[in-house]
């Protein structure tokens, strides 16, 4: 798998640099609102990065990834109810619970393909959704405020700047993880299983194990995004992470470019920024936004990454 220096990679690095330096701009007078927008963007980029592993590289369209956001967010909210503010505990709980949830639901749902997989992941997500709605102790459908943000001893994620760099660091680390994973043997088998499942069986592979592994990592990454989201908004309710959110994550991955490293960040960036600009422009922003998504789907099947690399792709590969 060749990774030549493409326009998308240059832009990806540039975007990360800007994100890394943005807080310094706020010192010289950038509106703090933009920092919030950037945190939101990065959290969704992490969630989409998780989804991209199973959707893009694995080839399974999951319409249930909002469930991992829920699990991650409630890993902060529920300890909060018992006055536990230890960040390591929050994060550890988010990782363990979302990995476990992915393992259990993946073991069932990955036995199906295509439309059935979409429906079964949606069903599992709805189950988790209504579980949290029904838990009156933890706020039920009214939601629950996070009074104690994750405290890691040295820093507390209640502070915007710490949260900003913690989220930024997570985005870097998890993108790096996907980068390595994709080029490793695991990534080769996962990609092979997406492209030619019959062939993989005939070559002696059992794709299921690799796909389940990818699903667990995918869910865990999105779970971490949920953990960050809870610290960011400091008030969570199941409604914030319903199945519509799962669909938005799929939009982000498709918009940016599935099975690409930079796709999730581009997708989340376009999504959050466009949403912001268009919602200021008109109350009915969903209409032009939808038209934009259709345009991307029609004119570039590979999303923004493919659009960006269009010129460089014309060069012969040899």
């Amino acid at each position, binding site marked *: 798998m060749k990774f030549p220096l493409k326009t998308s990679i240059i832009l990806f690095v540039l975007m990360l640099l800007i994100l890394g330096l943005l807080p310094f701009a706020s010192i010289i007078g950038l509106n703090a609102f933009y920092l919030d927008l950037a945190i939101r963007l990065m959290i969704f980029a992490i969630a989409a990065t998780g989804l991209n592993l199973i959707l893009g590289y694995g080839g399974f369209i999951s319409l249930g990834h909002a469930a991992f956001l829920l699990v991650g967010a409630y890993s902060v909210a529920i300890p909060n109810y018992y006055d536990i503010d230890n960040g390591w505990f929050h994060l550890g709980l988010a990782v363990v619970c979302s990995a476990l949830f992915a393992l259990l639901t993946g073991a069932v749902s990955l036995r199906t393909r295509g439309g059935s997989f979409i429906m079964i992941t949606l069903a599992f997500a709805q189950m988790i959704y209504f579980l949290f709605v029904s838990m009156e102790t933890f706020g039920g459908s009214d939601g629950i405020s996070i009074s104690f943000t994750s405290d890691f001893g040295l820093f507390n994620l209640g502070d915007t700047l710490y949260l900003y760099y913690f989220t930024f660091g997570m985005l870097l680390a998890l993108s790096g993880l996907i980068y390595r994973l994709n080029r490793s043997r695991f990534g080769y088998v996962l990609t*092979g299983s997406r492209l030619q499942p019959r062939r993989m069986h005939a*070559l002696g592979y059992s794709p299921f194990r690799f796909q389940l592994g990818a699903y667990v990592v995918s869910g865990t990454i999105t779970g971490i995004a949920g953990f960050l989201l809870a610290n960011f908004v400091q008030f969570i309710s199941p409604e914030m992470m319903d199945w519509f959110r799962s669909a938005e994550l799929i939009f982000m991955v498709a918009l940016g470019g599935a099975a690409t490293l930079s796709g999730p960040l581009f997708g989340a960036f376009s999504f959050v920024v466009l949403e912001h600009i268009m919602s200021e422009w008109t109350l009915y922003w969903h209409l032009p936004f939808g038209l934009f998504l259709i345009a991307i789907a029609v004119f570039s099947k590979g999303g923004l990454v493919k659009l960006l690399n269009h010129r460089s792709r014309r060069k012969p590969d040899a």
Partner: protein
Amino acid sequence: MLEITHITKHFGGVFANRDISLCVEAQQIHALIGPNGAGKSTLIAQISGELKPDSGRIRFAQRDITHFTPERRNRLGMGRMFQTTALFNELSVLDNIRIPLLRSTARRYSISDWFYKAVESDSSIRKTALTMLEKLGLDHHPDQLVAALSHGEQRQLEMVMTLATSPGCLLLDEPMAGMSSEESARMIKLIRCLKNDHAILLVEHDMHAVFDLADTISVLVEGSIIASGTPDEIRRNAAVQAAYLGTR
């Protein structure tokens, strides 16, 4: 090496295979011929494990493999070449060989190899892959995408992939389909060479190739084997002439 006894498979009321028995020995080529719809592909699918027979048994490498999965059969040494080319089109020629090689040499790898180290940086895999490509003259553009290869080259690559897991038994499903005469001549030469250390079951429409290569030929018509024997016996067989060869 590979022994099929009394295999029957039907889809609804239609019998695709009816009481089929055949045997493929080491260093032998057993060819399976028959008109379209005779049930050759169904039989191959059952031998490779994609379909389960309704009755009958399949033995391979001294084991009853009737209920084994395709991947387990491959691990026992069964290699399958697909009828319609089933390559990883979006990947490079080299990557197409790397994927099977990663499986057949997987035991030596550590956790870091599996999840962290880049496959591209593994020089021994690269070297092995290039050597295999060189044998079929496909090593000119190892980084080219498979989709850019000609049909003949794709069939040859398909063969390299099949061989990459070092199977002892080969199921070749129409290896010469769609090839130019020059390309199929090269493929015939290769298959004859592979006979030295493989048991081969060959399904092929090119009669010239079949009679040239096979040690035993079985003729499948409407799901049943109507004749089985040496190329000379098959050529003289009146039933075969009537049912199959005569119509061509």
